[in-house]
């Protein structure tokens, strides 16, 4: 295994930070969701890389669980999105500010 762990972690960090940036700057709920998935990709990569380098299956285990969570989150989140778009026909988060005050 010639590639050092640090390289994988760095790629994970890049993906995670890009995802964060996407969550923070994009207005569309859909794209924000996609960005969250991107963050999860970064995390998953970190998990699996550690799992391989530590020679321990716990990391892979967590990657599996995290996949599960991602799937569940996407399902529920998109269902909320559909329900929301039916009610307010709006999926730009900066216009959804009824939480104010």
């Amino acid at each position, binding site marked *: 295994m010639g590639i050092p762990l640090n390289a994988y972690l760095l*790629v994970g960090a890049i993906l*995670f930070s890009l995802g964060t940036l996407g969550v923070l700057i994009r207005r569309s709920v859909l794209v924000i969701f996609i960005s969250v998935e991107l963050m999860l990709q970064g995390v998953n990569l970190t998990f699996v890389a550690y799992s391989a380098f530590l*020679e321990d299956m716990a990391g892979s285990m967590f990657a599996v669980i995290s996949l599960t969570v991602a799937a569940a989150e996407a399902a529920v989140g998109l269902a909320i999105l559909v329900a929301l778009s039916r009610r307010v026909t709006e999926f730009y988060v900066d216009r959804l500010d009824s939480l104010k005050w």
Partner: protein
Amino acid sequence: MTDQLIAFTYLSIVATVAGVGTISLRSPVHCALSLVIVVFHVAGMFVLLGNGFLAAIQVIVYAGAIVVLFLFTMMLLDLRRHEQERTVHRRQIWLAIPIAILLFVEIGTIAVTKPEISEGIKGSFSPATISDLGGSAQALATVLFNEYLLPFEVASVLLLAAAVGAMVLARNPDEDALASVPDMIQDASGLADGDGGQEAESVEAPSAPSRDG
């Protein structure tokens, strides 16, 4: 060695570029497709790390299920109506970019400097052991169904709850047949303890219009 290096270089560059595309492309469909590219290349890295099984799962679940779900949702929503909208939160972008860069610098610092794997803290699943077991799928299964059985079951319940929740949330209450489930149960019980179908019908008749009004 060099094969791996070349592969890794390719995978990481494409994943990064696709990641940038995911967050910067205008159309949500393009974003989702970029995410698929990221997913594929991360899966490739999983293969590089010797975890073929997880790579397969990654492709199946992400590319096959989640992204397809995204695309379905986009199909349900009328996206063309929003084509003229700005895609970026303009007031926040000047704060968000520095903070994201700062975050990257921090995590990157940790990623580059901290990890030092000594032999002492390594676990029992060396590549040799994994190949003895028959591959990463077997290795993961050994752990999953022994040590992590409970989290596995909890995760399955989570998925079930998500499936039910998604259905409940996304249904249209006005035209959904599911809204009449309580009435159906009532009718069924009326059939069960009534003497015959006629009485049950007489029970059913007044209850039917009440739920519409």
